[in-house]
């Protein structure tokens, strides 16, 4: 990995390395090890977190090898038979149920990116435009509450309110207004899922955008006001650009896990609308295998999802660079 251009000329002026230098032609520029030594305190900073990740995250990742095995827990990872790509069969044999699950997943991912992702941003901006700090805080404290409900409760709530025997329909029926089929209606399933997600998580998601808004330098607003910008133009020229970085960052990060769309939420509601409409990758894996403890396929599909996620993230990051944005990991030039 190349090191990005250091900005502090002060460091450039360090004396050239002596015998311990790694590179040959490095007389003016410090080599890798010199720089590392210079920043040894930062190495120390990195150590605790990195160690924890190494031991409890990366090392166990090796266990994903069971994607290639017929894993039986009582035999252990090494004792189980090697089966090569058998667990991945589902993916490349064109199993229609799998393809259906994949399609549903992709559609939901796209819909979420377009409809669900922007919601907290808009809400944050709206909140931001409130004059009273107090009201803003109160509203925000209310809107984030649903995040803490489990999906079991949220689904039950929606069902009790909008279901065939729920409050809405009971009201309609008792007034001879017929009944509306919302829960259990295949056509409305996707909008239902999306509205549930929006209801549950938008308030919570605004938090990070509010934090981002909070870090925008107040003086930029003042400067804009001095230049004669009204509220809308201030938003356009100060607020939105100020948010841009965070929005892109979060969007890219989210792409990495985008193929995981609402497992528990969907599982709880599958029976009414049928698998055709509701099966996504995670529920597919669950219904087909996880229940009986069939780790192999679950791990295999998980691996594939992760690889796709990585590709998406790296790709999106590159795309961001093309637009001159920082993305996740290009260091910003000031």
């Amino acid at each position: 990995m190349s090191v990005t251009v250091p900005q502090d000329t002060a460091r450039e002026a360090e004396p050239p390395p002596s015998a311990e230098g790694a590179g040959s032609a490095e007389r003016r520029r410090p080599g890798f090890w010199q720089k590392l030594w210079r920043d040894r305190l930062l190495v120390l900073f990195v150590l605790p977190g990195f160690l924890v990740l190494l031991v409890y995250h990366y090392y166990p990742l090796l266990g994903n090898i069971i994607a290639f095995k017929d894993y039986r827990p009582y035999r252990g990872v090494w004792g189980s038979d090697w089966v090569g790509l058998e667990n991945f069969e589902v993916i490349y044999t064109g199993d229609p149920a799998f393809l259906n699950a994949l399609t549903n997943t992709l559609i939901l991912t796209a819909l979420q990116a377009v409809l669900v992702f922007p919601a907290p941003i808009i809400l944050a901006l709206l909140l931001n435009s409130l004059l009273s700090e107090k009201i803003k805080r109160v509203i925000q404290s209310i809107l984030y509450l649903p995040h803490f409900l489990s999906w079991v409760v949220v689904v039950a709530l929606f069902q009790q309110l909008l279901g065939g025997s729920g409050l809405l329909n009971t009201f309609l029926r008792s007034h001879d207004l017929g009944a509306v089929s919302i829960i259990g209606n295949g056509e409305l399933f996707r909008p239902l899922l999306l509205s549930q997600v929006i209801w549950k998580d938008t308030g919570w998601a605004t938090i990070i955008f509010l934090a981002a808004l909070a870090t925008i330098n107040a003086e930029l607003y003042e400067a804009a006001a001095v230049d004669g910008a009204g509220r809308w133009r201030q938003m356009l020229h100060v607020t939105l650009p100020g948010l841009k970085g965070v929005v892109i960052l979060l969007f890219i990060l989210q792409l990495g896990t985008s193929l995981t769309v609402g497992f528990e939420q969907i599982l709880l509601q599958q029976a009414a609308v049928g698998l055709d409409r509701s099966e996504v990758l995670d529920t597919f894996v669950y219904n087909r295998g996880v229940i009986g403890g069939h780790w192999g396929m679950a791990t295999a599909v998980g691996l594939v999802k992760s690889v796709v996620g990585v590709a998406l993230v790296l790709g999106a990051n590159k795309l961001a660079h093309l637009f001159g944005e920082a993305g996740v990991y290009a260091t910003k030039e000031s």
Partner: protein
Amino acid sequence: MPTLLHGQAPPSAPERLIKAVVFTVLCLAVLVPFLAVFATSVAPREQISDAGGLVLLPRGIDLTAYEAIFSGGVVTRALGVSIFVTVVGTGLSLLVSCLLAYAISRSHFVLARPVLLVVLIGMLFSPGIIPVYLVVKQTGLLDSLWALIIPTMVSGFNVIVLRSFFQGIPEELTESATIDGASEWTIFSRIVMPLSKAVLAVIGLFYAVGYWNSFFSALLYIDDAAKWPMQLVLRTYVVNDTAMGQADIGLEQMPPQSSLQMAILVVSMVPILIVYPFLQRHFAKGVLTGAVKG
């Protein structure tokens, strides 16, 4: 957020009206179900049965669900466990994550990009629960409260967000400190941290809620039920989703499931609701004002 009255007219009346309506609708959409949650947790049994599970306005206050939860002292002790894990866990997580994020936010650091990539890509892969269990066992954490903290101490997502915010701090500030001969630690503790209150509050909240809601680690790593955190304990009160005939549950004296579930919800949320306002003010206001001058 700085107010918008920088030499502009205040929002027009129609605009305020629209905003008021929008926010009222949004708040009602959230509050009404929550009212139902709370109401159901205290509603008398007959009312819940009549209503088929969810009640909007309780006819009386019946605290049997709460009594059921707190009797036997199990939940109370579990509460203590949860508080310990959340407080210590959040503190450690924030510290370690900030150090890591800061280090990789420093552009001159040779390891910045590699470590970032490792964190980013690693975050997208998840290890299976059994391999992690084996590692936890090998590192001697089984049946200890530390098993609830250490393995999940660092979240890649949080680190990357922190890094991004740290990079957003104007370079003039850090550069001038460097020129003055300040060490990385000084820059970190005297400049970057104080200016990052907003993101620290947010990430701290994320970690805290994560620890508070966690039950899975305890399920796997802690055999002694006396050391269980609250969420795991509360999970035993909820009848799982199988037909009654499958589960052999002694329901004799239990309050109705609905009120129990709602009471559990309320109990789990109360601590967060208490703590939240203290954090909120940090990400509700501008913090960089005047920083450059300082």
